[in-house]
C-alpha cells in the first residue's frame, strides 16, 4: 500500500509538508487522509481544472522558514481603521496583530477551529491535514461592526507553504466587513492554500473584500465556502491586482429564503500571470436573489479563466440570478477562457448569464485622441473605466482607493 502511495505526485508533494499541529476534529482528519491517500493532483482532464495546470505546485521546493517581518508593511494597510489580524506564511502573528479581544461583539479564538464540514477537494483536504494555523472569529448577534476586520496574509522566504484556515461566524442580525489581502516580502515560489468558511446566519450581513496583490512568483489557492441562512446578505468582492498564479474557488450555499448574494470580481493581469476564478452559487431555497459581475483586463501573455456556475435546485422557486463576465484583451497573446454555467431545476425563476470578450473600442480611442489625449492616456482611461464599473459598486472606499492606487502605480492609470 505504502508503495503505491509514494508513486503519486500528490504523495511526493505531501511528503514535503509538515502535518498540522493545529487542533482539528479527528473525523475530519481521517476524511482528509482517506481522500488524499493514493490520489493524484487533478489534471486538465478534470473539468474543474481544465485550464489550470498544477504541475508547478507539485514540483515546488518546500521550505519551512522562520518568520522575518518586524512590522506590518506599509502596502498591507488598506483601511486604517481596520482591526488587523496578521499571518506570516500562514501562521498567526499575534505580536503584529491588533488586540481583537478588546473589540466588543467579537469573539476571537486562536489555535484551532471546529464545525468544519469535509469538502471533497484536494486543496481543502490538504488544508485540513497540513494547516499552518486556524482561527475562528464570531460576530455576536446584533453586533454592528463599525470598522472592518482585516486579515493580512504575507508570504516571506523561499518555498514557504501557508495553509491557514479561517472560520467566520456571523450571528443573527450582525453586520460586519472583512478585508482579506495577500502580500509578499522577499519571497519566491511560495504556496498559499487558504480556506475561509463563513456562516451567515438569519438576518446577518457579511461582506468580504478580498485583495490579491502579491508581486513575486508565488502560488495562491483561495477556497471560500459560505452558507447563507434566511434573510441574510452576503457579498464577496475579489480584486486581483497582481500575482503570478492564482486560483479562487468561491462556493456559496444559499440555504435560507429571502437571502441576497453579491459576487464581484475585478482582475488585471499582465506578463505571464495566470488567474483562475471559479465561483459556484447553489440556490437551495426559494425567493432569493444573486448578482454576479466579474470584469477583467488581460495584457501580455497572461491567461485568465472565469467559470461561474449557478445552481437553482428543484424547490428553489422565484429565484432571480444574474451573472455577467466581461473581458478586454489588450494583447494578441493574452487568453481568457470564460464559461458561465446555469443549471436550473425549478420552473419559476428569472436567471440570466452572459460573457463578453473583446478588445478596446478603437472608435473610442480615436475619439479621445481627437480631443488631444495621447493614445496611451486614451487606452488607460478606457481600461480604468471598464474595471471602474466593478470598483464603483464596492462600499468600502478605502478598498476602492487602495485598488485604484495599486493599479495606477502598476499601469499608470487614472480613475
Amino acid at each position, binding site marked *: 500500500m505504502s508503495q503505491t502511495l509514494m508513486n503519486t505526485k500528490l504523495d511526493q508533494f505531501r511528503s514535503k509538508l509538515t502535518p498540522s499541529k493545529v487542533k482539528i476534529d479527528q473525523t475530519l482528519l481521517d476524511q482528509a487522509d482517506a481522500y488524499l491517500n493514493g490520489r493524484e493532483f487533478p489534471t486538465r482532464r478534470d473539468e474543474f481544472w481544465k485550464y489550470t495546470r498544477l504541475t508547478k505546485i507539485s514540483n515546488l521546493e518546500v521550505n519551512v522558514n522562520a518568520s522575518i517581518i518586524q512590522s506590518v508593511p506599509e502596502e498591507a494597510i488598506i483601511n486604517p481603521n481596520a482591526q488587523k489580524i496578521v499571518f506570516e506564511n500562514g501562521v498567526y502573528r499575534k505580536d503584529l496583530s491588533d488586540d481583537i479581544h478588546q473589540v466588543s461583539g467579537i469573539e476571537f479564538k486562536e489555535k484551532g477551529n471546529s464545525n468544519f464540514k469535509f469538502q471533497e477537494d484536494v486543496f481543502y483536504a490538504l488544508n485540513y491535514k497540513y494547516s499552518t494555523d486556524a482561527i475562528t472569529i464570531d460576530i455576536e448577534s446584533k453586533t454592528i461592526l463599525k470598522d472592518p476586520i482585516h486579515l493580512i496574509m504575507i508570504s516571506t522566504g523561499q518555498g514557504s507553504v501557508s495553509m491557514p484556515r479561517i472560520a467566520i461566524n456571523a450571528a443573527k442580525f450582525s453586520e460586519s466587513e472583512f478585508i482579506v489581502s495577500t502580500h509578499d516580502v522577499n519571497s519566491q515560489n511560495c504556496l498559499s492554500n487558504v480556506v475561509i468558511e463563513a456562516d451567515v446566519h438569519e438576518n446577518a450581513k457579511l461582506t468580504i473584500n478580498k485583495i490579491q496583490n502579491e508581486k513575486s512568483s508565488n502560488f495562491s489557492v483561495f477556497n471560500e465556502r459560505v452558507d447563507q441562512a434566511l434573510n441574510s446578505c452576503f457579498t464577496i468582492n475579489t480584486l486581483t491586482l497582481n500575482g503570478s498564479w492564482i486560483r479562487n474557488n468561491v462556493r456559496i450555499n444559499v440555504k435560507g429564503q429571502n437571502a441576497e448574494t453579491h459576487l464581484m470580481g475585478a482582475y488585471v493581469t499582465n506578463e505571464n500571470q495566470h488567474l483562475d476564478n471559479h465561483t459556484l452559487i447553489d440556490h437551495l431555497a426559494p425567493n432569493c436573489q444573486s448578482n454576479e459581475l466579474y470584469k477583467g483586463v488581460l495584457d501580455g501573455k497572461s491567461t485568465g479563466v472565469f467559470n461561474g456556475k449557478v445552481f437553482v435546485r428543484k424547490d428553489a422557486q422565484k429565484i432571480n440570478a444574474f451573472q455577467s463576465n466581461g473581458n478586454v484583451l489588450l494583447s494578441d497573446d493574452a487568453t481568457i477562457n470564460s464559461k458561465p454555467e446555469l443549471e436550473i431545476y425549478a420552473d419559476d425563476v428569472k436567471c440570466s448569464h452572459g460573457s463578453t470578450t473583446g478588445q478596446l473600442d478603437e472608435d473610442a480611442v480615436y475619439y479621445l485622441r481627437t480631443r*488631444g489625449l495621447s493614445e496611451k492616456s486614451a487606452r488607460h482611461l*478606457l481600461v480604468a473605466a471598464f474595471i471602474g464599473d466593478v470598483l464603483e459598486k464596492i462600499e468600502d472606499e478605502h478598498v476602492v482607493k487602495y485598488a485604484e492606487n495599486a493599479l495606477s502605480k502598476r499601469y499608470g492609470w*487614472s480613475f
Partner: protein
Amino acid sequence: MKTLINIKDLHASINGKEILKGLNLEVKPGEIHAVMGPNGAGKSTLASVLAGREEYEITEGTVDFDGKDLLELSTEDRAREGLFLAFQYPVEIPGVSNVNFLRTALNEIREYNGQEQISAKDFMALVREKSTLVELDSKLASRSVNEGFSGGEKKRNEIFQMAMLQPKLAILDETDSGLDIDALRIVANGVNKLKTPENGAIVITHYQRLLDYIVPDFVHVLYDGKIVKSGSKELALELEEKGYDWIKEELEKAH
C-alpha cells in the same frame, strides 16, 4: 494675410478606393467655410482625413495647418495644435466622464504647448462657463461621454467640448444631421458665440438649413472628391432650390 489651413491637391483613398481626388481649400482666420455636397462626394472623408483617421491613405497633396505640415502629425498632435472635429456620430464611452477626460485632454494640450496644468478650481469654472454657453445641462457634463444621450444632446456635447478646448479650426461634420429645429438653433448659437477673428470653421453639411443659423463666408460644393464650385452664401440657397443634380449637369456640359 496668413492662412489657418491650406489644403492643396489632396488625394485620399480607403481600401484602395480613391475618395478625395485633388481637393483644394483655404481657410483664413475669422472665416467660416461651408462644404456642401451630395452623399458619397467625400465630405466625411475630408473631415476624417484632416482629423487623422488612420484608415485613410493620403496618396497626394499637402495640408498646411498654421505653418505646420498637418499630415505629418498624429491625431492627438493635430488636436493639440488646435484642430477640432465635431463628429457626425459621436462615440458613446461608458464609464469615462466628460469632465474627467476633458481635464486630461486640456492638460495634455497645455503640456504640449508648454503651458501649466489647469487648476481644479479654474477647470470647474471653465466647465460651468462653457456648459452655459452651449446650454448643456451641467449634469450631462459630468456624465459618461455621450452614454444614453439623445441625438441633440450628443451634438451639444460636441460643441461643449469644442468650447472647452478652444480650437483654432473647428470642423463640424454634418452637425445638423438628426437635429430638430430647437437643437439646431442651440448648436448653431454655440458655434457663433465661439467665433473670434482668430479662429475659423469648416462646416460640412448636406442641407442648407444649418446655414440659416451659421452664416458662412464661403460655400463650396464638393462633388466626386473635388471642390467643383465655390461662392458666397447665396450658392447654398441656389443648391437648396435646384438640388445637386444641377451641379452634375453643369459639370457634364463642361466636359
